[in-house]
């Protein structure tokens, strides 16, 4: 086997152009996932009747099945569902006009939500109950107390795990190529399809994923350092 450095470089440069797609999938999934996950974590932590069972089932099911399965279920399930509805109500809309990347957004948000829920839940547990009571005692509503006191600290406490989640989703976003979204992995495949130098192309892709991962880890370390100033004394 012989490496072709100049082709690796060509592939590298070509793949760079789709980095925004990979980052967009990652960002959308993580942001939506954090919203879903925070809601699920609050529901479970405060044992909201009925909803907390629903949230627990969601988390268990998603964490118990592979991410590519979520993507395929959403892709086929949503397409079938949309087309059936359109037929029922006589709409002109067809699932084929849904952009492919939307399936990735939805599926990965659902996946990320389940993982984020566990991350945020452990963060919530790190905020002692006394602070919630103190907030109530000065007259805050539960909503105010969560928004201003509990959730910010839960986020801060779960930051290292959130950064792991971002990296995990970044890597997993490569699965979007199965629904023909041209992100980093798909692009590598396309670039190599002219000369069959797949190894070189995927090597270039690997370097790009690695670089992005390092950037994410560096950024989160910086944020963490700033935030941790407040937590030096631990929980008291």
């Amino acid at each position, binding site marked *: 086997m012989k490496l072709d450095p100049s082709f690796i470089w060509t592939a590298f440069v070509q793949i760079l152009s789709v980095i925004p797609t990979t980052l967009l999938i990652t960002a959308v999934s993580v942001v939506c996932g954090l919203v879903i996950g925070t809601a699920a974590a609050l529901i479970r932590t405060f044992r909201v009747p009925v909803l907390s069972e629903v949230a627990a089932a969601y988390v268990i099911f998603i964490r118990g099945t592979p991410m590519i399965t979520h993507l395929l279920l959403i892709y086929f399930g949503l397409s079938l569902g949309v087309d059936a509805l359109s037929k029922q109500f006589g709409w002109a809309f067809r699932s084929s006009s849904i952009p492919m990347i939307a399936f990735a957004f939805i599926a990965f948000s659902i996946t990320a939500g389940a993982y984020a829920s566990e991350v945020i839940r452990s963060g919530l547990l790190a905020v002692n109950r*006394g602070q919630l*009571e103190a907030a*109530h005692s*000065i*007259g*805050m509503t539960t909503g105010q107390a969560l928004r201003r*006191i509990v959730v910010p600290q839960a986020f801060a406490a779960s930051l290292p795990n959130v950064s792991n989640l971002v990296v995990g989703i970044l890597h997993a976003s490569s699965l979007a190529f199965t629904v023909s979204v041209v992100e980093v992995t798909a692009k590598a495949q396309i670039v190599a399809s002219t000369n069959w130098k797949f190894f070189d192309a995927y090597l270039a892709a690997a370097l790009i994923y690695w670089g992005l991962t390092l950037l994410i880890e560096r950024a989160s370390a910086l944020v963490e350092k700033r935030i941790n100033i*407040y937590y030096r*004394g631990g929980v008291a």
Partner: protein
Amino acid sequence: MIQLKGITKSFGRQQVLKGIGLTVEKGEVVVILGPSGSGKTTLLRCINYLEKPGGGEIRIGDCRVDCRAASKKDIRELRKRTAMVFQQYNLFRHKTALENVMEGLVVVQKVPKEEARARSVQLLEKVGLGAKLDAYPSQLSGGQQQRVGIARALALNPEVILFDEPTSALDPELVGEVLAVIRKIAKEGITMIIVTHEMGFAQDVANHVIFMDEGVVVEEGRPNEIFTSPKEERTKQFLKRFTPEGVYSI
């Protein structure tokens, strides 16, 4: 004036408060004594509605709440009129001393920020923390944290401040500074209900002492009556454990 009538509270099958009645006049300092597990904390938490009483009536000033039928608005009114100082301080750990004190003013009472800041600075100076405005709780000693907790309670200008063993989590050498602050604000005529095991402090700060055991008020009266000539056997037994080494003054 604060008046409690027939306050009850159960956890599961264990009845912790068995019909507590008590009256606190405006400006009075009431100290609640009692052995561990007698329900003192639970009583304070019921007044602040951190714990929902099973029954009874709470009256604070012109606000009267029937505990069986308390609405969200009733609870808000009660919390507006009361403030709590916690054993574990419970400061907001991601906020500075100043922000801890300002929080209730700005978020709950909607006081403009600049005014809230000025008032909070004044209160922190009063508790001797004028130099620690921008410190986070993790940068403060226990005694300093508790003084921030007191300033936070004072900021809301409540009709009564409830203290739940405010010094029992502190290292002995830090107890004095906190008691001194409580004494100081007691002199300003703020109504207070204090649960404490500091007998010397209780004796000289209280206008009225209540001895609780097993969820009932066993005996109450002026401090010198309770401390020097208690009538009930249970009170005598309890106080005996605290003399002489439990008593000290600052």
